[in-house]
């Protein structure tokens, strides 16, 4: 009988290393997040611009000398549809539910009783949120760009390509910045969706006001990073759009995202969750 080497078993009294714990939670959360009804709805909403671009390409008007070019439409989609409306909404629905869903479903206990550092749980879930939303958004942005920018012909598209990369960066930053904020709301509040909606569609409207106030919104900083500045209609059009310095905008967005996430980790690590029976 030959003696086989028994692998040294892990000391289960000590928590898993941080990165290993993050990886484990990430895999679990990604599976649950991608294959949810929420993701189906988001995939439809995020894919709408592709359907619109296909329709535009199919229409004969796309081949005529147009007053608004395909690239102009792409600019409106990025600035108004994605960055201003849909991505913050996607961040709200995903990021607020990172912990709130576990509390609601009374499954948080199973996670917290595992030998995992608490910040690793939130970090893994946040990474899964970013991966899920980016996996749905970026392909949609790329396909929409090529469909609309090449509508009158592929000539000249090279000059527009830097905008695509810039837009992809801003899209990612939008998801991270709003994701950080709504993760904080998710760990702080029991019902974070209504305050989140109020933040998005009431507070963020001050971006259109003159003076210093727009600096207290995330939209103003994100908008400043985009080169697309489609004309505003209605009341917003009467007021001058404030474009803040791009370097400052990048620093503010990265700083606030880091701050929101650090606060979220700290609160989640400290807080005692009492689940309803």
């Amino acid at each position, binding site marked *: 009988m030959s003696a086989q080497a028994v692998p040294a078993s892990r000391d289960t009294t000590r928590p898993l290393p941080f990165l290993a714990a993050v990886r484990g939670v990430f895999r679990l959360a990604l*599976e649950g997040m991608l294959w949810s009804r929420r993701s189906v709805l988001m995939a439809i909403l995020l894919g709408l611009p592709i359907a619109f671009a296909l329709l535009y390409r199919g229409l004969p008007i796309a081949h005529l000398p147009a007053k608004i070019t395909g690239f102009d439409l792409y600019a409106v989609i990025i600035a108004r549809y994605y960055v201003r409306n849909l991505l913050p909404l996607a961040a709200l629905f995903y990021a607020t539910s990172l912990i709130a869903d576990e509390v609601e479903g009374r499954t948080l206990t199973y996670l917290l009783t595992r030998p995992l550092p608490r910040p690793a749980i939130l970090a893994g879930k946040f990474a899964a949120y970013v991966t899920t939303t980016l*996996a749905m958004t970026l*392909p949609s942005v790329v396909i929409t760009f090529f469909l609309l920018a090449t509508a009158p012909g592929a000539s*000249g*598209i090279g*000059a527009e*390509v830097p905008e695509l990369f810039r837009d*992809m960066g801003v899209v990612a930053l939008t998801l991270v910045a709003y994701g950080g904020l709504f993760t904080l709301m998710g760990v702080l509040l029991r019902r974070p969706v209504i305050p989140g909606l109020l933040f998005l569609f009431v507070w963020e409207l001050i971006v259109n006001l003159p003076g210093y106030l727009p600096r207290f919104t995330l939209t103003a900083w994100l908008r400043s990073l985009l080169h697309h500045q489609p004309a505003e209609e209605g009341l917003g059009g009467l007021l001058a759009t404030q474009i803040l310095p791009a370097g400052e905008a990048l620093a503010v967005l990265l700083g606030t995202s880091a701050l929101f996430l650090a606060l979220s980790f700290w609160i989640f690590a400290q807080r005692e969750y009492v689940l309803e029976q």
Partner: protein
Amino acid sequence: MSRSRQVVFIAVAVVGLGSLVGVGAFFLDPARAAVGPLPAEGLLLPADSRFVVGLDVKRFTASPFYQKFRSQARPDALRELEERTGLNPERDVDQVLIAGQATKGAGPGLAVVLGSFDTYKLGQSIETGKQKAAGRNFQGFTEFVFNEGGPEAMAVAFIDRQALLIGRQAAVEAALQGRASGAAPLRTNATLMALLERVKPGSTFWMVGDQSLLQNLPGTVPSPAGNGAAIELPALRSLIVTGDLEPVVSLAITGDAADPAAAKNLANIVSGFVSLVALQASQKPELKDLAQAVSVATDQSRVLVNARVPYEVLEALQPKREAIKPPALAP
């Protein structure tokens, strides 16, 4: 591979492929040299230009503004172009870019006209036109020179079937030399390049100018008090103007002042003039709408003036034509 990983893998593949195609297009497309609203051909404009103006002719001619004011507002430059070259700007021209010196005696600037041109017909019309000019080859490009040998010799050159150069012979030939050697003279003008990058893309017309453009502007304006006093205007370092003609006539002017205080001072002066216009509303009510259409703001050392004037207001501001009276009958 789990389903989730497959989804992420497909997303990464789509983004990666799109990025590769984009990078390929960026390096292979000749238009890659464009800066802001300026296409690659615009970089042939002289390096010592003090201002650059762009007009999207297609958007301009399609606008309600052009349709309404066609008979009165057709720019002289385009009419002159048509007279000289037989070119129909409405049909053939997409974009016009003009660069100039803005100093006395500098003469007309250099214009790059982009569109689709029948170079054979165009060359013929130039050769048989009123001001005859013989075509010749210059550095591999066809060039027509008017008043050759004279102090103000003008030239038209075909870069290709999509681009023309018009201006002083010396400026046109310098641009052609730049084109032949693959140079981009305007790119060396760091001031204008920085300003061009700030121009909102997709505007019907735009203009950027450095401080030398503004040196010719008056340094003072008469005080509204009317007692002979004058208000000193703070100096501007640069100016960016963009405009659109649809759905309303909109104009955005950004002036860079020396510091925030100077910007605020200038903004107050502009606001004061807007208020003066509003005060005239009792005599001419449409001036109230005009004053309301203008907003003035500052952002650090920048002065931002925005105007969005509906066509109804523009029409109301037009001088009323008197009804034609029938001639009085002789008794």
